[in-house]
């Protein structure tokens, strides 16, 4: 029983961290209907800079870096959208070409990190990194708990931004009906850049948080990108809250499956769930049916 509770706690802690990363992916997908393959690579970049190097150079705490990363990566996302993704949006094959271009870009980011900072695995060591609280024999990692709280703050912030501000509402409107928005005088290009920037920013912050308790290397993104896709697909593709819940489910599956399969196969179980989702519940992702001609 204790073991089970322990796993559930661990599942929730990792799940929310996936949820934050997936939320950015869902935001970008929801607004532009494109899949950003470079998403996890941005998160990994944030693990190096600001998180790791700001701590090395100036002793800035990773939890502070999480907030510093927001404006930096917003700008980075904005620029990526402006100079890369935007170039292929609007073409008939936009869905596939954005996927390919972001895949190429993720390879660029990863290998850039490899060239500049070497492939050596990094670990952030802070007093809370490995410390745990012991509540009735259930161990709760401190770094993960702080990360969870900050993650929730970030998600709530994003939620408030999208629902309470004019620009946020414009972003939502653009997701629902881009053509209608264009007629209403909303600058779609700006909204798209904004959405991409926001999506990347929240993911970067999520990456900073994850770095506080997980070792990482330049190609760390390759191990989590499918987990993020799985979370988003489970959450119904476009919804941020859905992505968070999807991430939570994935986290729980990952932890609880260790009861059944060896720990080395954790991710295999997650991928299997993802593939199964695509097979049996492909809502919104199937080709358009109905009145098509």
């Amino acid at each position, binding site marked *: 029983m204790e073991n089970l509770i322990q796993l559930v706690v661990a599942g929730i802690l990792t799940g929310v961290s996936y949820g934050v990363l997936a939320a950015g992916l869902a935001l970008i997908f929801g607004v532009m209907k494109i899949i950003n393959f470079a998403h996890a690579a941005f998160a990994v970049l944030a693990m190096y800079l600001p998180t790791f190097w700001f701590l090395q150079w100036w002793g800035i705490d990773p939890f502070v870096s999480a907030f510093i990363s927001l404006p930096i990566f917003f700008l980075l996302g904005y620029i990526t959208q402006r100079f890369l993704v935007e*170039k292929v949006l609007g073409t008939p094959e936009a*869905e596939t070409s954005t*996927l390919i271009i972001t895949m190429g870009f993720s*390879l660029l980011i990863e290998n850039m990190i490899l060239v500049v900072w070497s492939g050596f695995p990094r670990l952030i060591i802070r007093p809370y990194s490995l410390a745990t609280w012991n509540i009735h024999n259930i161990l709760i990692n401190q770094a993960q708990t702080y990360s969870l709280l900050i993650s929730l703050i970030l998600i709530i912030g994003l939620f408030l931004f999208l629902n309470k501000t004019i620009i946020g509402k414009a972003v939502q409107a653009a997701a629902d009906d881009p053509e209608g928005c264009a007629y209403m005088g909303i600058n779609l290009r700006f909204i798209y850049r904004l959405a991409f920037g926001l999506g990347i920013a929240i993911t970067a912050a999520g990456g900073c948080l994850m770095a506080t308790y997980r070792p990482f290397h330049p190609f760390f993104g390759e191990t989590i990108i*499918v987990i993020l896709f799985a979370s988003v697909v489970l959450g119904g593709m476009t919804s941020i809250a859905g992505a968070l819940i999807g991430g939570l489910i994935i986290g729980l599956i990952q932890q609880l499956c260790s009861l059944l399969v060896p720990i080395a196969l954790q991710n295999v179980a997650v991928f299997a769930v993802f*593939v199964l989702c*695509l097979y049996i519940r492909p809502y919104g992702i199937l080709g358009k049916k109905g009145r098509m001609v």
Partner: protein
Amino acid sequence: MKINEKQQISPLWQSYLPIVLVCAVAILLSYLIGQNRYIQRILILVLLWAAASSAFNIISGYGGQTVFGYMMFMGTGAYTTVLLFAFLGVSPWLGMWVGAILAVIVAFVIGFPTLRLRGAYFAVATVAFPLMTIPLLNYLGLEEVNIPFKRGISLMQFSDMRFYALIAAVFLAIILIIVRKMEHSHFGFSLRALKQNETAAEGMGINTHKIKLIAFMLSAALGAIIGTVYAFSILYVLTSHAIFGLFIIVRILSITIVGGMATIWGPFIGAAILVPIGEILNSQVGDRFPGVQDLIYGAALVIAIIYMPEGIWSKLSQAFHILAEKLIPKKLTLTAISIPTESPQLRSFDSFNLESIQFKTLEDIPYNPILKIKGVHKSFGGVNALTNVDIEVPTGKILGIIGPNGAGKTTLFNVINGYLTPEKGSLFFEDIDITHFKAHALCKLGIGRTYQTPQIFNTMTILENIIIGSFVKETQIAKAYAIAEKVSQQMGLSRRANDPAVGLSIWETKILELSRALATQPKLLLVDEPMAGLNPEEAHHIGVIIKAIAKSGITVIVIEHVVQSLVKIADRMVGLDEGRKIAEGTPDEVTSNPRIIEAYLGAKWRERYAKH
């Protein structure tokens, strides 16, 4: 890719000679390089990456289904062969075929469910498989497998690298010949058509899911063989990451896109440019900057997609054609005849040959009525698009269907030709229950159709569009070509037959859709709003054409908004409103039916009409 007279009569050697030549030159080059292992390695890598990318090109370039998890098949091939060799001592020459068969099975398991998904989701779904395989192999203790070092021709192990170059060149030649053969086959045309427009392809008798699956399995089998050769000639130690890793697909994508997707020489050109750059950079600065090679591939991919998505080969062949046209004065062809001063549209009418549309005679069709629709229901969410519709379509006649916007006319067509399955009721075509038939099967049975919003295959020529139709009854390309030629002549399109099917006038679009449907040699033709967007004169001519089609023995159902034009051509009419049949009879009966008048003009008009 264009079908023209010359290629029709060209002997086999003409289309395969360049492939054999290029690969022979590669072998010669390898022979001359001799024992320089470094340069041999680059040559082998160029050949192997070109071969793998060409195999990938079949499903992803020609078929338009980007397989991000393509390394799954190379990996399956390599691992199967190496494991069989290392543990059971099976010769790689035998093992590679086992690997290929296994890859085909894996492709079926992956492809059967995922090929239903739309482009980008399919890509992402496939990438999960290799990423899933890596931890699985690592768990099984197969993260690294040493390829046992036993020399011998029968074991595919040579100290002289030239043998590997020979093997790679031969396989490249085989793959390119397969691709070339595919390009000019029924299969290749179907693949191109479904890449363009899956809905229209289904309507043209192409079983899109099956064609995609076959292309997928073909790509997988060829990829598995190349994976094996790659493992034996380059890797020596097979690691799960080196053959299932994401960087493999990025290299293949870069090579294919830089060279040119869906072109025969694109992957080879891409590999010939990118692989040497990557290898040389890696050997020069790779120790100081690991990852510099993948940086090149990533950058090439991003730049190519933005600035040259059609690829180098397309650019080159374009430039070559322009140059050739300048140097050699164009021979007189059908398309090059100077056009008289009259408007081209009128010319099209003139060249339309009413008499010769004759595929079927009435005696051939014993069934009457040809189509029976019984109590059909179809709803979308809460909206009832069709409610309890009963229609009998008399053989050899023209049935007109009228009704205001949203009456369910196009939905009825979608139900008849199998795009939609009704929730209740049944359909009988020539006494066959077709209720649950899919569109491609119905097209083969003899139901052709045109569309309200044009569904033309844009990247093909007008003639190729029609050929897609004629493939329904004729799988041999020469015969299909002849049918398409005949139809295009009858319909007055032959002058533009080899022009690309983009930027056509509305008239030409309608005629092209009709021609394509006629080329399927239908017994029943569904024509959706043929007159919409045409001027009165053109509308009249379309009416004449439809009458001629019916006269030749093809039953026609026409949907039209413009009641007056339909009255002139229809033998019987059916009125629909809000998904219900509200009138049926001769055109006069239907147009004077009060409910039709109400549906079209409102209740006020019905009263006025009643007073007269």
